[in-house]
């Protein structure tokens, strides 16, 4: 088997990031000096990009299908705000535009960044452990508001520290 045939067998997994570092380097080194193999790589890449660009459904289709799925699963029907929301949104945007036009508000106003507190909650939610999730569910089910999420995490940290110091003392 010649070198080109060998490399061409690796191009498909190379594009999918499935080769080891050494194999990838060998492919890249060969591609840098072989135009014919580069052509196969470009062809495979173009085909992958075109096929992988999956079409998306319209937003209404997602909501319509979600509603149907909820019905099939015997879930409660949610009041749909969509028909009211659309004209209300349009009216709000128009209103804001008119106010901005007549009051001289600059178009590029200062955009408020989300506070540190909010960012922390978001990042903590993404890294939440199973135990923390269980605890939130228990509080939610018992109807206890339990403060907000950051307070809960603080309590958990304190509990952990207490347990740790208790262990050390023992």
């Amino acid at each position: 088997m010649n070198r080109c045939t060998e490399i061409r067998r690796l191009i498909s997994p190379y594009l999918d990031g499935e080769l080891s570092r050494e194999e990838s380097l060998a492919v890249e080194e060969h591609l840098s000096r072989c135009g014919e193999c580069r052509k196969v790589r470009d062809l495979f890449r173009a085909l992958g990009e075109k096929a992988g660009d999956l079409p998306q459904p319209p937003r209404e289709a997602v909501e319509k299908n979600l509603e149907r799925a909820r019905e099939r699963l015997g879930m409660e029907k949610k009041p749909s705000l969509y028909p009211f929301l659309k004209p209300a949104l349009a009216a709000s945007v128009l209103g804001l535009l008119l106010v901005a036009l007549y009051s001289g508000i600059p178009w590029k106003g200062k955009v408020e960044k989300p506070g540190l507190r909010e960012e922390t909650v978001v990042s903590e939610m993404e890294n939440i452990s199973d135990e923390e999730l269980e605890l939130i569910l228990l509080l939610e089910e018992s109807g206890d508001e339990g403060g907000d999420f950051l307070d809960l995490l603080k309590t958990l940290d304190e509990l952990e520290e207490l347990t740790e110091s208790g262990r050390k003392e023992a």
Partner: protein
Amino acid sequence: MRILYARLPDEKLMLLLRKGKEGAFDVLFRRHFGKLYGFFLRSTGNRHTAEDLAQEVLVRLFRSAGRYEPTAKFSTFLYTIARNVLLNYIRDSRKKDPEVDGGEGELTPFELSLETTPSSCPDPSEILEKKETLQVLEKALSEMPENLRTPFLMAQGEGMSYREIGEVMGISEGAVKLRIFRARAFLAERFDAAFRET
């Protein structure tokens, strides 16, 4: 206390789904319906069918949440359901899926030519630029055997690894590698034929 469902990863939402939390279902549905729709549209070529099949997968996801092991990767679990739904659809619609010898038979002359004489293959820039590309692609994918198309779409559209695809399809990583190569070669051959005609 309100859980920010939309901020939770899929695996955690599955735990909530096991406890019957409807909010978790809504988030998982909105998060994955679009991708499943795209996968089924590329597989069936029909928008209504794609919507129905994507909905069916997510209904089955809810029903089978009890079987979900938190250690398992969510995408593997979801696409195992998706593939079963697709195979049922192919069987029920009695659409004959082209035979490909399990995807692991000998290379076809065109596949061999890609490995030896690529000068005969279509120009990549044509694929990216020609306006008939989408039409040719959709037709070629609809004619491609399911056992080549599914791993190819999972890798290209979903970014799934060969190992994950192997788990979904119950085949080895080596077999996934070969099937994806053959899927690319299948498309290349169709583009070659289509562009030579025009």
